[in-house]
């Protein structure tokens, strides 16, 4: 079986295992830039929206980007139209995409999360929801995704609200991500996805923060081996499927995450360098020889 073939992600049929990472590919803006080729040649097998919040957000003050030799630090701050704006303006356009739609949502309390999840899950265009409990850019007081108990409590509120798959997006900024993954699974999550960005702060030589928001999150190849460790640990600890991501640049990176236990792989930062990076990654994944049983690949 080709490692680039169809997969089932908690009931969602994906034509291949490569999806996008939330917040790294705006399909609506991409159509403005590239036209309908985006629909005809859509490189992902599911589309994950940028995280939406109950109310509209303008995002963090610029600068929002810092470049590193093997990655980048962002402090975007979840700009989005809010639930209402999303449902009205964006959802109809996203429904035109040729793949299942996963909507990423975030709120700062279970009470705020609940109506958001209900309203989004209610829409037939939506195949699943990703719960962003980990974004390091937004100061929500306690970071839910950093505490197993907080995660379990959130799931207790949200799980009864919908039969649609709930995917919990894990933060890498914890000692043992598996403990959070287990809490999510026990709380009824259908899948987990990881890793989100690592807390980072590009500073100038005089100590001044470069980013408008002070600090941000690191992504890209620099975090690849951290992602591999966390995905392997999490996949070994739970039964529900895992969406692996973090620094995927090549088909071999995707293959490695799949071998580490991921069911699907998300491409993030790589899309900034090439809007069709995911297509290339999938082709490279397809071209990889199926691994001979038991062979370690070590020389």
């Amino acid at each position: 079986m080709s490692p680039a073939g169809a997969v089932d992600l908690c009931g969602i049929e994906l034509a291949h295992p490569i999806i996008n990472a939330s917040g790294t590919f705006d399909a609506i803006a991409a159509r403005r830039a590239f036209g309908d080729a985006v629909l005809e040649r859509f490189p992902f097998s599911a589309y994950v929206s940028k995280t939406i919040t109950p109310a509209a957000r303008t995002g963090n003050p610029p600068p929002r980007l810092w470049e590193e030799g093997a990655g980048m630090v962002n402090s975007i701050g979840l700009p989005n139209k809010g639930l209402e704006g999303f449902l009205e303006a964006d959802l109809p356009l996203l429904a035109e995409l040729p793949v299942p739609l996963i909507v990423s949502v975030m709120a700062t309390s279970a009470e705020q999360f609940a109506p958001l999840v209900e309203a989004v899950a209610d829409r037939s265009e939506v195949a699943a929801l990703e719960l962003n409990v980990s974004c390091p850019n937004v100061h929500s007081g306690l970071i839910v995704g950093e505490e197993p108990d907080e995660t379990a409590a959130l799931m207790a509120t949200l799980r009864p609200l919908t039969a649609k798959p709930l995917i919990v997006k894990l933060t890498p900024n914890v000692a043992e991500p598996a403990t959070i993954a287990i809490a999510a699974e026990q709380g009824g999550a259908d899948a987990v996805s990881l890793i989100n960005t690592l807390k980072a702060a590009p500073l100038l030589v005089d100590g001044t923060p470069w980013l408008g928001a002070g600090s941000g999150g690191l992504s890209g190849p620099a975090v690849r081996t951290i992602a591999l460790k966390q995905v392997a640990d999490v996949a070994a600890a739970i039964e529900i499927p895992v969406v692996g991501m973090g620094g995927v640049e090549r088909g071999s990176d995707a293959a490695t995450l799949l071998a580490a236990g991921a069911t699907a792989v998300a491409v993030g930062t790589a899309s900034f360098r090439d809007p069709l990076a995911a297509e290339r990654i999938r082709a490279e994944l397809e071209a990889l020889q199926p691994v001979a049983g038991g062979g370690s690949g070590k020389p």
Partner: protein
Amino acid sequence: MPARADSEPRAAGRGEDGRVPAPFGRRRGEVIANEPSGGYRIITALDPGGPLPAAGQFYMLATEGGWGGDGERPFLPRAFSVAEATGGAEGARLSFLVEDVGPGTARLATLSEGDGLLLTGPLGRPFSTPDELNPDAAGAILVGGGIGLAPLAIWRRTLASRGIPERSLLGFRDRQHSGGLELFRCSEIRLASEDGHAGHRGYVTDLLERMLAGDSARTAVVYACGPPAMLEAVRALCELRGVAAELAMESPMACGFGACFGCAMPLRSGGYMRLCVDGPVVRAADVETALVMGAGHR
């Protein structure tokens, strides 16, 4: 930003705002020339199969090899306004005016004939025609500074080919920060330089001020591209005189196609636009100030 009435017939394949959509994905162009021009370089590449861009649009560029080294920057592609574009069905011949200011531009400056140039584009919103900005427009005034000559050069050619009168006011800090004048050959230009090495000693906005005073502000339309301080002076002057203006702006960009939300530019109405898809050419009236860090060509 509400959709505008499109008063001019558009070339086939043009979309919203007259923007030319880019082929989806990054492709390989090939460098055919890389020559010094004053303190800058003009890099020309063949883009086989690529479309002709509209003036004001930009490309995300990276070299095929050596984009990075020692695990160091550059990592992300870099945005460059197209300065000249010719060609036809087989593809486009694109020129960029590049100032070496850091690791990415330094690497681009080393390109040789035959080297691969990875490009995504044309991207973003191009210039509007004078009559789109002002129904009484008598022509266009182009105000450029430093590396900001790039988008104005292709815009001047486009205007000329459409028979729209234009005058260019170009300013430079000093010899080191000038170049690209050959892109304005056969056109009416006036120069200013802060160090007096060419034309008027002083700012290009001095020239604009005089021109708008002489001219009827009612029929003027201004297009500006240059460092933030110059853009801001143009913006304030045009606001004061009630002159319609468009500014070609800059901001740090990771993707260039609306994916990262990194290129936030503050809107007068509050919040931010994404400069890569809502710009880089913006109506002067839409921004509060052009004095935003990294908001203009240096």
